[in-house]
């Protein structure tokens, strides 16, 4: 039953986080905390000359929160805000699905491993915290799909 939650992909990202504490030229950052358990994450975003996103994060917390941040940075780094938006949307929808949604691997790649987390209400926030921080940092940096379209 724990296997539902702790997919091999999650344990791998937890033990070998990608994109953590990478130094980037950041435009904005967002610090988020889960007040029920004390998990913390800071996500920074910047922009490459070609307009794609640079993402870095740091934080401490449970395997779900840390693996989710790692998967997020891998998925979003190097994507344009317009390319990132549907991935972010799909992840949010997956987390709200209570285990009822078949995730689209084409869109979510490694993030499909979090499908099982949506069955545990107490853990959804763990998986979402870094994605919330990313969305908040993007708004601050005006690097959301909407702002960049308008600006561009």
């Amino acid at each position, binding site marked *: 039953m*724990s296997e539902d939650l702790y997919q091999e992909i999650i344990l791998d990202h937890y*033990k070998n986080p990608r994109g953590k504490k990478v130094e980037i030229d950041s435009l904005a950052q967002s610090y988020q905390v889960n007040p029920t*358990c*004390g998990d913390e994450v800071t996500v920074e975003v910047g922009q490459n000359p070609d307009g794609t996103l640079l993402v870095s994060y740091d934080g401490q917390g449970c395997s779900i929160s840390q693996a989710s941040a790692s998967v997020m940075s891998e998925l979003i780094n190097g994507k344009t805000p317009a390319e990132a938006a549907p991935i972010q949307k799909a992840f949010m929808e997956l987390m709200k699905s209570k285990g009822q949604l078949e995730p689209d691997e084409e869109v979510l790649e490694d993030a499909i491993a979090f499908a099982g987390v949506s069955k545990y209400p107490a853990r959804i926030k763990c998986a979402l915290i870094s994605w919330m921080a990313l969305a908040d940092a993007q708004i601050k940096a005006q690097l959301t799909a909407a702002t960049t379209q308008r600006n561009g």
Partner: protein
Amino acid sequence: MFDVNKLRADFPILSREVRGVPLVYLDSGATSQKPTQVLDAERHFYETSNAAVHRGAHALAEEATDAYEAARQTIASFVGAKIEEIVFTKNATEGINLVAYAFSNATDKARQGIEVDRRFVVGPGDSIVVTEMEHHANLIPWQELCAKTGATLKWFGLTEEGRLDIQPGVIDSTTKFVSVVHQSNLLGTINPVKEIMDMAHAVGALGMVDLCQSVPHMPVNVHELGADFASWSGHKMLGPTGIGILWGKSDLLNAMPPFLSGGSMIEMVHMDHSTYAPAPQRFEAGVPMAAQAIGLARACDYLSELGMDNVFLHEQELTAYALEELAKIPGVRVIGPTDMRDRGSAVSFVVDGIHPHDVGHLMDAKGVAVRVGHHCCWPTCRRFDVPATTRITTYIYNDKSDIDQAVAGIKSAQEFFGSGIAVSA
């Protein structure tokens, strides 16, 4: 000593399964389970005598009022208090806020030239003293009071072992109020509250104790604690949710301005001013929680039948066993005292390389319900440099086999994550 197997039959929830396995409930520090006797007492009240208490003159209103006040007497006797010293609140948090608001309301009124008891007036230059092991419920109301009045918040720090570091000079001539937890809900430490209350009184300050983790688990006589106020909750001592107790010395309660105001807390009401009933009614505005009071009184009787000395001994034995078994697991570190001196039954620990949330989740997968997180003691976690802990708390219905299940759950978490895995920073 009582028979755990026999009394477990009084708690139907303990025979259910969770996640497909039998439930092992080790989270009574968060809330206790309720025996049938308590549930029946509430049901009986609703089925036979339900009416709004302290208003109306019909037969049911009289019976309900009698039952409500009899419950107050039972609860008072359980902790060695007088009936007029017992105020019903919705929980322990409200009891602490009630006292904190007495200070801020008296201070506000004094600023407007209204006559109030000066013991409740605080301002710049005054200090309020707490400790680094307080539950947020006994910290934030005092932070708020300081923010509103300009008083300064001070606190006793903690030793590495998880005991209060009682340094001279924290309580001094500026101190107006001292509020301390009796038994820490995170560390399990039992504090020398009498000594601290004596220090408070020596400088003319008033004092309060948070009894949430002591009244359910050990014999407590409120008058022997040396405090002026105490607060605890009903739901952690086999009683219903929605009821807590504020105990206070009568002369102080009667000198305090009201907290929540409205119906039934009054003496005389005019369009432009009112006078207030004496305590405890002064602090019980609105139709109170009669069924919960009756349920809580039944919980007190249930505990009295077992004997609080026996409850304490039973849990001391279980706690000693838990500490002994946890010490045998490599990579497990207890946060809080590791010996039984002045120690209650809350046992917090961390497991190397595994976040408490993950430990708790894997224990839950084996049916073992424990608490994970900062336990509303974030500054205490920070003091011990841990983001959170996993916590075992026992009660009358637990036995050593429950501790064995918890230990098996911790080991399964270590196996699952690979014992001592190095997580790259």
